């Protein structure tokens, strides 16, 4: 078995360094979905940008350390009047990245401006934006249109990095739950039902009246998060595991109201689709008008 694992890793590395493409349609689809997420969330932000982040906004600004990096990332704390430029830079760059125009420069601008907006206040954004800007950084090295071997190689490395980042989220989220007493005692999901901002009345009444359901969901979530990084690589278990995760994240997005976080975690599942599964997914959504924006042709 050890020999088999070693052979698999060795053949994977040979394939990686040979400049051969892997699931390039999956890579391109994931890339476009992330930029689409940034654009849609940017549009939700537009009506309240001025009142929350603007010069006369609700954000209480404090100075940060005088390093160049902090001055750039937290620039809206020092110069809030620049939020307009940064916001439209983010929207324009993300749109260009979505339609594959502007290359690495567009993706770099998208990442930097998203990071600056996300760092402008801790009152508006949840974990979804952290996922987004960490992925946006790695997406800079993903070349949807590739003519040279080294670009294919960088793209495959970036794609690997995106997967590892996704697995880190799941693993450490599971670890923190394993360390929390309310999760271990099976009480966490029941406590969640008392928070009206995350649980509508109908869900609260179900979870509070059916204690066995709350406990089952509690332990399922805990162990799912921890074992996902290992089991996702097992082909037989991968699809049912992803379907289960699909259910959790749809609940997060639609019932708990964390649309942005639920959506971006669902997008993350595209990272683990096989070539056949990606083709199937693309064929299902091919009729949607927005897919014309997502459609692509990779040069051979």
């Amino acid at each position, binding site marked *: 078995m050890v020999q088999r694992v070693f052979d698999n890793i060795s053949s994977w590395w040979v394939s990686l*360094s040979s400049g051969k493409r892997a699931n390039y349609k999956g890579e391109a689809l994931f890339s476009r979905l992330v930029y689409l997420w940034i654009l849609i969330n940017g549009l939700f932000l537009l009506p309240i940008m001025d009142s*929350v982040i603007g010069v006369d906004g609700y954000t*209480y600004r404090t100075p940060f350390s005088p390093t160049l990096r902090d001055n750039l990332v937290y620039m809206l704390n020092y110069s809030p009047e620049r939020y307009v430029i940064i916001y439209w830079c983010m929207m324009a760059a993300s749109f260009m990245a979505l339609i594959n125009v502007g290359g690495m420069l567009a993706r770099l601008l998208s990442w930097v401006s998203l990071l600056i907006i996300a760092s402008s206040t801790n009152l508006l954004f949840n974990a979804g934006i952290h996922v987004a800007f960490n992925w946006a950084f790695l997406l800079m090295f993903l070349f949807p249109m590739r003519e040279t071997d080294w670009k294919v190689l960088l793209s495959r*490395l970036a794609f690997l990095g995106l997967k*590892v980042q996704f697995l880190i989220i799941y693993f*450490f989220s599971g670890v923190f739950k394993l360390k*929390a007493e309310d999760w271990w005692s099976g009480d966490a999901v029941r406590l969640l039902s008392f928070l009206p901002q995350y649980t509508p009345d109908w869900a609260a009444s179900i979870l509070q009246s059916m204690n066995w359901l709350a406990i089952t969901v509690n332990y399922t979530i805990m162990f799912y998060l921890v074992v996902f990084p290992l089991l996702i690589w097992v082909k037989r278990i991968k699809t049912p595991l992803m379907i289960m995760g699909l259910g959790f994240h749809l609940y997060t997005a639609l019932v708990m109201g964390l649309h942005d976080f639920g959506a971006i975690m669902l997008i993350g599942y595209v990272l683990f689709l096989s070539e056949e599964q990606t083709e199937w997914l693309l064929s299902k959504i091919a009729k949607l008008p927005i897919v014309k924006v997502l459609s692509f042709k990779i040069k051979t």
Partner: protein
Amino acid sequence: MINTRLKLRKHILKFISILGLIALAGHFALVSVAVAPYGWSQPDIYYVADRYVKPQFGQYWQLFAPMPQENSRLYYRYYSDGVWHDQISLDKEMKSLGSRLAQRVALRCAHYLAAETRKSTVVNSDETKSYRVVKASRSYYSAAFVCWKNAQKNYSVQPDSIELILERDLFPKAGYTQVKTIIDYYGPESVR
């Protein structure tokens, strides 16, 4: 000649792949150290990882762990023209902006202030000391600033004083109890 070039290209690609894998491994090793529960790594290593990760790769994955043990809401009153005005719900005010994102501002203010209150109550048994610690925290200034700005924008006043009222529904094992915490704030100078 062509064969030599192809061989050289292969070696270059292998070299880049090894370099790339090392860079990825290093990056995610530091991210893992920074994100892991405190105490999993040596403080020195954690400090280096934390400085590398923040702010451009900043992330935290304590998602509902631990689960909030209370539901909190923030209200405020402002003092203007010699009169204390009626209690205002910050949540309702932010909802009136018509955006769910704006409502998050109210939820976050209440949540962070409640966390600060809970933390200082555990550490300081003396209520006066606990109150002073909360009033010195960033969560307090952030919440007070939002309330003050809200009064300015929605009621066209320059409040002389603001009083924050934090309503906390605590969740013991059976049912819940409600606790009200009143945090006074005198003068808007500190938050301008």
